[in-house]
């Protein structure tokens, strides 16, 4: 079976990446070509032959008609866009209480700070957008707005109390064309402004200058965001509400959102500027590592500490948690310091194997109830034993050993802090799950990537291993998971998982679904990473063998770094897929982003049956998320030079 399927693996990403490369190359091969005058451009690109003229006319007409129908639908009096505006909080955070909403903003602020720093520190500085491109965007948007103003049919007339006036055939009475055009003053202003700015840029700059002047992609995006945020200060954006109820009639989205969003924009921009400043200093490398590490921690800290607001039992912390953490840091540190001593030989091996035996026995004993031990201690012990087994690979000078012990201390501190927080009860005043809506989507996607990544690496190593039993087990797992649809696996985890667990052990539906996501995604990641592993040249293995490195050293220090570098773009692709797949949570009854729009909003008494509007909004958010990630992956690919030969 495997050989058949193996043949079909991958290839897609590579094929498309190569095509993108070739198109980019072709575009780059004629940078000095001056832009054509408008009429000649039309002739060359739209009316070059009889067939092309026919195609242009047919598709142009179809496009205009579709555009008109879409706009008429969107701006019809039957649309209730209030269903989206009023439910904005429900869509993004579902039942998270508004009294504690500051926590959401803090979480977003942390994410944006890190995003700004990462963008600022990034070494991928592309050319950005040329002024020519930007001015065409302005002209295109301006043209589209003006075309829209002319194409949309006049609005239905309303009576004094807001009811739509109907004629004898029960069709709405519409304004005259002239009144309609006059009513769309604001739209005229926006359209004409965009068009004028675009044309001025185009004409004023001259051909050479507009083609060779560039504005960075990130500053440009920040500028666009600034314009969007500033609209919150002068446009009311409809009513604000919670769970489908308009709380206070005069309170608008503008009132509730302008301050936090302005703050968010300032945070993002400030972090970006700080990042740019650091990027030119020689500390850039270590700050970059710190930021990446913070990214890894963010989902855990924001989810379990900030959003969940755990009630900490300080007496217990002082009496048990803190001493235990210190004991593990000092005791474990001492053991590791000893084990990394060069030339320790058999003694080290025996100590670490002994530790491992005790660690395993702790779990077995707890499982069968022989003696109890805190879960935190069991996890720490097992971690210590596993690191001890690998410790001799890190043997070196005193300074290196101290650094190794320091890393252990850091890991322990974070682990004990997080586990203490996770075990404390939540104080958030929400019905059952405190996360819902878009929050679930984001957190499931983030945790899936974090947990499936190590598992994917293990599976990929297993599948490419020379050890037959590991190879067979990994192959069976990967091919079985990849052979069945995701929804069946999700059903398996959300409905049957508890059947398999021993008595007294229960697992929440959301956690079970998350586990399903991680295990499913790992099989696909493993295939991506396997592609990377196969790209590592034979000579690298031989060289590390010649240096006398152990298998662990060879894999961890030589092979994996090279393999992972090659597989980064497909890994971003896997992140996009996971982000899109989170929508399947709606099927198994978890209230995620899609389910709020598809079931919760249409069920509210005020917006009974209003579904399309919410679904379109969901479409838009998913599109923006997935599209920006795929653009990012394309840039990353060009930066890494994958596909160059």
């Amino acid at each position, binding site marked *: *079976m495997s050989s*058949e*399927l193996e*043949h*079909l*693996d*991958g*290839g*897609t990403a590579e*094929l*498309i990446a*190569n*095509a993108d490369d070739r*198109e980019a190359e072709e575009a780059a091969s004629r940078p000095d070509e001056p832009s054509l005058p408008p009429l000649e451009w039309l002739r060359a*690109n739209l009316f*070059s032959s009889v067939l*092309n003229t026919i*195609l*242009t006319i047919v*598709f142009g007409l179809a496009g205009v008609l579709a555009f008109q129908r879409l706009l008429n639908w969107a701006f019809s009096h039957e649309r209730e866009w209030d269903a989206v505006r009023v439910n904005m909080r429900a869509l993004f955070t579902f039942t998270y209480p508004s009294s504690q909403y500051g926590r959401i903003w803090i979480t977003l602020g942390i994410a944006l700070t890190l995003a700004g720093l990462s963008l600022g520190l990034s070494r991928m500085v592309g050319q950005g957008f040329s002024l020519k491109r930007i001015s065409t965007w302005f002209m295109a948007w301006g043209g589209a707005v003006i075309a829209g103003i002319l194409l949309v049919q006049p609005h239905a007339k309303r009576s004094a109390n807001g009811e739509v006036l109907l004629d004898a055939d029960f069709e709405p009475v519409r304004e005259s064309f002239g009144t309609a055009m006059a009513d769309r003053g604001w739209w005229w202003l926006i359209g004409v402004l965009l068009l004028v700015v675009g044309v001025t840029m185009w004409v004023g700059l001259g051909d050479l200058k507009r083609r060779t002047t560039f504005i960075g992609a990130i500053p440009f995006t920040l500028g666009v965001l600034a314009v969007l945020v500033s609209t919150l200060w002068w446009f009311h954006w409809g009513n604000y509400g919670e769970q489908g109820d308009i709380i206070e009639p005069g309170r608008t989205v503008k009132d509730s959102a302008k301050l936090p969003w302005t703050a968010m924009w300032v945070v993002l921009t400030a972090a970006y500027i700080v990042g740019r400043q650091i990027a030119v200093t020689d500390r850039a490398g270590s700050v970059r590592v710190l930021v990446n590490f913070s990214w890894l921690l963010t989902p855990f800290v924001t989810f379990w500490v900030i959003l969940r607001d755990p009630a900490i039992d300080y007496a217990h912390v002082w009496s048990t948690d803190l001493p235990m953490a210190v004991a593990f840091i000092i005791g474990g540190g001492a053991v590791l310091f000893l084990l990394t001593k060069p030339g320790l030989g058999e003694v080290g*091996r025996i100590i670490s194997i002994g530790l491992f035996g005790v660690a395993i026995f702790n779990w077995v004993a707890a499982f069968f109830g022989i003696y109890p031990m805190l879960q935190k201690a069991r996890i720490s012990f097992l971690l210590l034993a596993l690191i001890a087994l690998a410790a001799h690979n890190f043997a070196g000078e005193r300074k290196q050993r101290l650094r190794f012990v320091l890393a252990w201390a850091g890991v322990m501190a974070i682990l004990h802090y997080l586990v203490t927080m996770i075990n404390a009860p939540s104080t958030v005043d929400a019905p059952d799950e405190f996360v819902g809506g878009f929050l679930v989507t984001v957190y499931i996607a983030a945790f899936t990537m974090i947990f499936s990544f190590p598992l994917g690496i293990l599976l990929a190593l297993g599948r490419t291993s*020379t*050890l*037959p*039993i*590991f190879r067979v*087990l990994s192959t069976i797992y990967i091919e*079985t998971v990849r*052979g*069945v*649809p*995701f*929804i*069946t696996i999700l*059903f398996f985890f959300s*409905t*049957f998982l*508890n*059947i*398999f*667990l*021993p008595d007294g052990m229960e697992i929440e539906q959301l956690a079970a679904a998350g586990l399903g996501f991680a295990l499913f995604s790992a099989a696909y990641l493993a295939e991506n990473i396997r592609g990377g592993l196969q790209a590592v040249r034979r000579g690298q293995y031989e060289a590390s063998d010649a240096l006398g490195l152990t298998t662990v050293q060879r894999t961890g220090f030589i092979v994996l770094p090279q393999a992972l570098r090659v597989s980064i773009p497909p890994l971003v692709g896997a992140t996009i897929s996971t982000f*899109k797949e*989170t*929508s*399947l949570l*709606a*099927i198994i009854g978890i209230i995620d982003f*899609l389910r709020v729009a*598809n079931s919760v909003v249409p069920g509210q008494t005020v917006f009974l049956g209003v579904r*399309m509007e919410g*679904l*379109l909004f*969901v*479409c838009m958010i*998913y*599109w923006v998320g*997935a*599209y920006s990630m*795929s653009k990012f992956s394309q840039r990353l690919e060009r930066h890494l030079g994958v596909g160059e030969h």
Partner: protein
Amino acid sequence: MTDTQTSLHRAATEKPPFYRDATVVKWLVQITTLAVTLFAIAFLVREAGDSLQAKSIQTGFGFLEVDPAISLGEGIDTDPATGGRALWVGMVNTIRMAAAGIFLATILGTLIGIGRLSSNWLVAKLASGFIEYMRNIPLLVHIILFFVTIAVVFPDFGENVDPITGEVSQGPWNGVFHVSNKGFSVPRVHIDNGFYQWLIIVAIGSVLGRWVSKRRQALQDRTGQETYPVLSALGVIAVFAAVGWFIHPIFGFVGDAIFAPIRDLIDGTPQGPVQILLSVAAGVVAALWIRRFLAARRTPGGAAKLTDDDWFRVIFAGIAATIACVVILVLWPGLSSWLINSSRDFFDVLANKFGDGRGSVGDDPPFSVSMPDIEKRGNFANMGPSGLNLTQGFAAVFFGVVLYTAAFIAEIVRGGILAVPKGQTEAAEAIGLRRSTMLRRVILPQAFRVSLPPLGNQYLNLTKNTSLAIAVGYTDVVQVGQTIFNQTGRSLEVFIIWMLFYLACSLTISVVVNFFNVRLKIVER
């Protein structure tokens, strides 16, 4: 000797202690992992058995034989008599959706992929806009959007009522083609009693057609004249099919004369010899494999020394054969009788099918057509059972998977076209080929060679993605399975059936794609 030399010498000659011997550690770790994995699986399965028993939920595949008391929205049998039949209806629905989807998505995707590379700016922009729209939004959202849109856009079902007779009718062509917010219904073509006899005649025609095509191809290669080998082969098959339509009853004897005796022969076979035959076969296969394996390790200088991995393979083959024998003879004797019974049933079905339709041609044609009708349940008009009904759910899932996959296929086709070396285009232009001819004869054949493996991957994805039908209530295998396990509690069993079904689908698609992949490969001389 210096110190270094001594230690090197020692390292080369002395054996390390057993716990550091690479071979020992390697196998110890592997066998421990295997044992832990097997133990964990056994433990979990036992836990599952216990907790199911505690909840007094029955287990086993018995539900396949029992009336599930459900009625399905659409499919070959909307009122299945057994659970197995219900799942089968679901499977047919999935296969129907997947096959139609693969066909249409390939065509659409190829067109859009070519459109993206068009020299016409508008067409290229529209194509890339379509691709970016489709592939950056989750398929489930697309499907739900289509589902909601269909209900809004298409007319109510049976909205035209005749004021005098009270009969309802549905446009655009009443009785033949109905389009409504409940879905589409079109005439259904289905195989009739004479089909299998007719199939024999077509098969004979195909063999003859192949021979003709080979002859004409040889003629073309020799003389350089255009001889239309494929067209003539198709012509021969068409002639046989047309003639066969009128004379197929002459093959009515096949059922009684060939398949019935085979059935009787299998029916008379006792179980014991089959068991022995199967275990001997397992042993022989293992022995042959080991012999071939050892032969491959033989060098001109004699038999090579076997490494520990080689020994593992040989021993594993032996163990596998032993386990197979134990299963066949002791643990599961029912396997042999099941094999006997099902092959008997298979030939019984064949005997019946080929024995049917010996009447006149008019009574038992190979195919017949049933027209869609309108059924009134109470006051509500609905699609009747006789036509081919594509419900709202079907349409939503179908449009969803086809357009979504078409976007990915378009990208693959674009990649394939751009992977064709530029020299090919230039050469084609140099010999004066027209653009359409160039595309058809030079670029697309080479592009498809590159894009076939990723295309196969997309076909697998499409098949798996049809399972999202559960969100809009189309009765595919997942939806039927979920209904059944909600009613009977047989969740694990249903999950196993799902898994086997989808694995079989994946395997079929990969085998077919691989077959073409091998055929399309450049033969290197």
